[in-house]
């Protein structure tokens, strides 16, 4: 456990000393603040449009940052050979992988917290009401990004950053569409198509299950299961991703 925490702390330290991260964060904050300007172009529902746009900016930039940093997570350690000295200590490959994952998740959660503060300030300035629903929605954005980091970790464990970016982006995009695919298949009435979409829905991450934006912005009631079930889903799905990553990473030769 000490090794996992040491690797996680080092990954966190490396990430927060990365200037690219701050540039991306600055863009995200500018976009969140810009939602105030964009919403003012509308005559109706200005506060809801403001929060919708701000949430969208938060999720989009969260995903971009998670993928941008996550795809290099393992590759950089191998490419620069820092992994040689780390694994020559009493550190298992699984512990190393989990440490890297946790370090990046901690970084992403810090960024989500900063973006949430920017969101709150923008809402306050724009007179948009805030409630516990917003807090729950932000927490689920953090969970969604933890799953995306898990995907990036899996691909980073065995392929190049370019391919890892491609695979992670593709699956993240597909993960937002699986519910729509299910609905489309049900409407088609074709049992074959339904079976395929059901299988896709099970295998691909159901990232829309982490989306409470609508509930928060429209002040719809949020039940305990709306939050608890995604938490368990994120833990289970990420565990499988990290298990697969670990199995692949165990067999890898560092030539």
């Amino acid at each position, binding site marked *: 456990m*000490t*090794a996992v*925490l*040491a*690797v996680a*702390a*080092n990954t966190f*330290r*490396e990430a927060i*000393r990365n200037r690219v991260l701050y540039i991306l964060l600055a863009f995200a904050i500018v976009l969140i603040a810009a939602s105030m300007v964009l919403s003012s172009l509308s005559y109706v529902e200005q506060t809801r449009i403001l929060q919708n746009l701000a949430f969208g900016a938060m999720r989009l930039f969260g995903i971009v940052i998670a993928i941008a940093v996550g795809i290099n997570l393992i590759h950089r350690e191998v490419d*620069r*050979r*820092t*992994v*040689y*000295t*780390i*694994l*020559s*200590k*009493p*550190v*298992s490959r699984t512990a190393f992988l989990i440490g890297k994952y946790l370090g990046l998740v901690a970084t992403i959660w810090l960024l989500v917290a900063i973006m949430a503060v920017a969101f709150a300030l923008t809402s306050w300035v724009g007179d948009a009401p805030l409630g516990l629903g917003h807090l729950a929605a932000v927490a689920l954005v953090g969970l969604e990004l933890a799953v995306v980091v898990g995907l990036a970790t899996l691909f980073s464990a065995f392929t190049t950053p370019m391919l890892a970016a491609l695979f992670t982006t593709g699956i993240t995009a597909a993960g937002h569409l699986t519910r729509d695919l299910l609905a489309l298949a049900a409407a088609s009435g074709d049992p074959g198509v339904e079976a395929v979409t059901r299988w896709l829905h099970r295998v691909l991450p159901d990232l829309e299950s982490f989306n409470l934006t609508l509930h928060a912005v429209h002040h719809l009631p949020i039940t305990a299961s709306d939050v608890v079930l995604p938490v368990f889903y994120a833990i289970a799905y990420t565990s499988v991703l990290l298990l697969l990553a670990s199995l692949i990473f165990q*067999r890898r*030769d*560092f*030539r």
Partner: protein
Amino acid sequence: MSGGTPIVRVENVVKDFRPGFGLRTKRVLHGISFQVSPGEIFGFVGPNGAGKTTTLKVLMGLIGATSGTARILGHDVRETAFREHVGFLPENPWFHDFLTGREFLRFYARLAKVPRAEREARIDTLLAWVGLAHAGDARLRTYSKGMLQRAGIAQALIHDPQVVFLDEPMSGLDPIGRVEIRDLILRLRDEGKTVFMNTHILHDVEMLCDRVAILVDGRIRWEGRLEEFEREGERKSQVVLANLKPELAERLEQRCQAELRGHGERVELRVAEKDVEGVLGMALGAGAEVVSVTPLRQSLETIFLSAVEGAAGGGR
């Protein structure tokens, strides 16, 4: 070989790599075996591409052997826990350069399970030991190559290991840096550590190592103490002659199996010590002039070259 249970025991280790996506494999290690005893500095010598780093990576668990066994301190190298007794410095090391020297050692101390109460004292001791006490709070990206190498040795020793593996520790260093690292390695031996050193710099091996294994094309060509080289090898002398007629040169080559190398009007011969008298008699009898006779010392370089040439000549 020194007494005691071997610290490192490698038996018939084979390593195949698959260069591409195909089924064809390339054999890099051809069933190598050797042992390292406690307290010795062991030189693992070979030309570039011989398989030295591959062997070290197998020992560090960074790549898996195709077959054979490798053990350190009695443990299979695929295990993890025993590595708290093992230190490692890779070739041309690259570390997290956003860390300061002190943060860097703290990170490796945590990985190596150095108790929290002992960490800072251990870091201070090691920074002083490798001559980096003044640079502990500077980022690694500001370090010179020699300083990085010394920082690398400090991380290898942070947990006071029993055995230290060094991959080309003098590589790319200036003469002062090499002397500093050499002194550090000798201090490790004085502290009772076992040192395994990969290198192709024979001068360092002659100065530092108790025992040597020569690896050529993935095969161990020789393993033993340096002085054993001299006992094993046939002693030769260098005879330099002038005014040598071609017929005499031919006779010398055929009858004495002398190796002839021409240098202008002079000819250099390398002949077995037992044949020197006969060669001199023939040369003087044929009117040649004897310029010099020098007994040749069997240096590691000559052994190394003959091992490499032997491999190239098909002596596998």
